[in-house]
């Protein structure tokens, strides 16, 4: 299962990267969404999958899955939610001010003096 998941995560990262390299701001943000999904899945996978019951002591199981990765993912999910929300609103505002969602037209001033 872990091996399958590794490939799934790889695909998620691949799609995310491809999207983040595109021009449209929306696609970029979608890319970051995929990226965080991939990262979260990776934590879970790295903690080891299906090693026991859900980490609820009420289950009275002989063994439980590692709760740490789950707690980490939870924190990470919340944080990436905050970031995504912020990013989305930023995109919205940027569109209002700059009138475009094309990254090519949001060129910075680094090049020209």
């Amino acid at each position, binding site marked *: 299962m872990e091996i399958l998941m590794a490939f799934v995560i790889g695909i998620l990262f691949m*799609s995310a990267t491809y999207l983040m*390299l595109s021009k449209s701001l929306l696609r970029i943000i979608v890319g970051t969404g995929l990226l965080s999904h991939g990262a979260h899945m990776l934590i879970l996978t790295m903690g080891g999958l299906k090693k026991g019951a859900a980490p609820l002591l009420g289950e009275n199981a002989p063994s439980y899955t590692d709760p740490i990765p789950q707690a980490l993912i939870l924190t990470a999910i919340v944080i990436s939610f905050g970031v995504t*929300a912020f990013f989305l609103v930023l995109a919205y505002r940027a569109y209002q001010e700059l009138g475009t969602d094309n990254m090519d037209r949001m060129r910075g001033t680094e090049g020209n003096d």
Partner: protein
Amino acid sequence: MSLLHLAIISPFLLAILVPIAYKLFRQIHTGWFVFPLPILLFSYFISYLSITSNQQSVTKSFAWIPTLGIDFTAKVDGLGLLFALLITGIGALVVLYSIYYLDKNKEKLNTFYVYLLLFMGAMLGVVLSDNLIVLYTFWEFTSFSSFLLIGYWYHREKSRYGAQKSMIITVFGGLSMLGGIILLYMMTGTFSISEIIAQSDEIFSHVLFVPALLCILLGAFTKSAQFPFHIWLPDAMEAPTPVSAYLHSATMVKAGIYLVARMSPVFAEHSLWLWLIAGFGITTLFWGSFSAVKQTDLKAILAFSTVSQLGMIMSLLGIGAAALHFETVDDSYFTVATTAAVFHLINHATFKGSLFMVAGIVDHETGTRDIRKLGGLMNFMPITFTLAIIGTFSMAGLPPFNGFLSKEMFFTGMVRVLEMDIFNLDTWGFLFPVLAWVASVFTFIYSMILVFKTFTGKFQPEQLEKKPHEAPIGMLISPIILASLVIIIGFFPNIISNTLISPAQAAIMPVEGYVYDTHIYFWHGFTPELFMTLGVITLGILLFVTLPKWRSVYNLFPEKLALNRFYDSMLEVSQRASFNLTRLYMNGFIRTYLVYIFSFFIVALAATLVLKDAFKFDTSDVATIHYAEVLLALVIAAASVSILFVKSRMTSIILLGAVGYTVSLFFVIFRAPDLALTQLVIETISVSLFLLAFYHLPKLRHEERIRFKMTNALISVGVGAIVTMIALSAHSNKMFPSIAQYYVENTYKEAAGKNMVNVILVDFRGFDTMFEITVLGIAALGIFAMIKLRLEGGKKNENK
């Protein structure tokens, strides 16, 4: 902190008071507040003569950063004292001169004297520190005070140019010297010069010896304007003339000489030292004097002349180093070069200082320094003319001035090279006297140009800005004093031989138990040197008279090859090239930056994986796969990949949602109920936010073209592959049990909960959670502020 330290620091202290004095007493020329200090210091240092003339030294230490071996150790020995006297003595004269030279109503005297005092203190620090780091500190101080003084009239383009140039070159040298100092520290474990000298035998064989030598020499050469670093000095002439007289002829440029002299006992063992110093010195001598002839600006002539004279002193020090290789120094047969170096150092300060002041007077009284416009000033300013004659004749090496004596000794030193049989001097050594002689001819010529083109010939009043007249007496005092020194030393050289020269020589070439006893003779008999001098004079007069005829020789040296051009274009090209280069990769497109970042990610990690043979694939510890899970995996993969190809925004958002929900299903499968719950809710909110945020975007006029880009595809596949590969090998490399068991045991017992994940979140790792919600809170604040606060009017989206 001793009186000696106080003496070194006193200029800095006074520098703090100068602006205050300037504010309070506007009517009095600020120079008068400064003037007493160098006098006082001069007389203070005179009191050390009794000690150093016995070739003893005084060391006073003051802890600064002892843990790093950096102590402010002040050491007065012959060499240091000689320089200290020069600095304070000439300093006093220059301050006096400046009082008349700079108008108290027109100039910003406060800054001027602050810089000047900073310089004076720094210079004293350089010559009196025994600790290399302290020396370096003061060294950089001199560079910067010089920078500030050259840029004193900062509204002038040329001043700024000259200031920048001098700073770049001297700081370059300074840094390289610092490198050398650190290398020396690594060999000896100390920054103290005396201790390094004491270990000179050990370090000679050290592998870092040569690099250290080169680094230190680079510092000395740049500071003392040795070829090819001399180019900053002529441009430094943009400084007010008193500054030129002080910094750029008498003192600061001699810091390099000082350094070479000071470090001679450490490095002189090595042939490289001799060859580099003597070679660069003689080249500089030649090139400087040769270039001086073609100059038309009085101060430019003097600048090149300074360059050449510095080269001369440098070459003498180089040759003098050879003396260390001979068994006996008794007969001072070979040490004459060093004696000459020290002697000429003093002489140069006197005559060049006075000449600069003369040039300043001419400039001040006529408004120009261009010798093509000047001429016939003899009648208007007789005293100045006399002073100029004394200075230039001494410079040209004519009797009975001091310059003649040192020039003779210089020839002696150079001729004796022929008798040396070390370091291949027997094969190439003949070049030294030859070049020396040729350079002397040019020296003679430019000296003549300097005095005769200015003071004799046709008077051209129409070319001058002012009606020339003799300078005020105050302005003449300083050059008169210097000129009289030129004569006095010329006639009675031995008043300084055993008080100043021998002690200095002892510091340069310390030989245990040997007491230098220098005597300078006016008449040596009919030696080769005398004939050389005679030749110089004869040929010099001849060439001076026929100057217009052969001047075109200088056209053979195209401007393009000039070092200045090289410097300018290097500066220009480096800026332009870096600008173009930067613009090439900093193109403002975030995509480009991401390409760099991801490429590095791929390359670095792939290389590490391969080089470290880190990829490991181990299926012994994997969970079972169920077909439903495969199905889910396929869904997630299909959804994420198809986002790449969909055209409508809505669809890609929905697909992202699909991925998110599938992830939460995975969380269900992998026994993570809390995660599943959270992921579900978060995903829903995210999707609705996506819709909200992109609702405002206009309908795409033409559907977004998703052009397939090979680079993008390659990079994304690479990233995916790397992530997968590391995941596989990280999973196959589980080396330790997780710390999870602790939570299983303690969740109920110690934290009174049953949901481990939740208990971890609020208790075990509650700290994380606290800041996680802080992040959320900040995000909300930011979103609120972003929407409400619009400093640029915030026009609404017109497509709405």
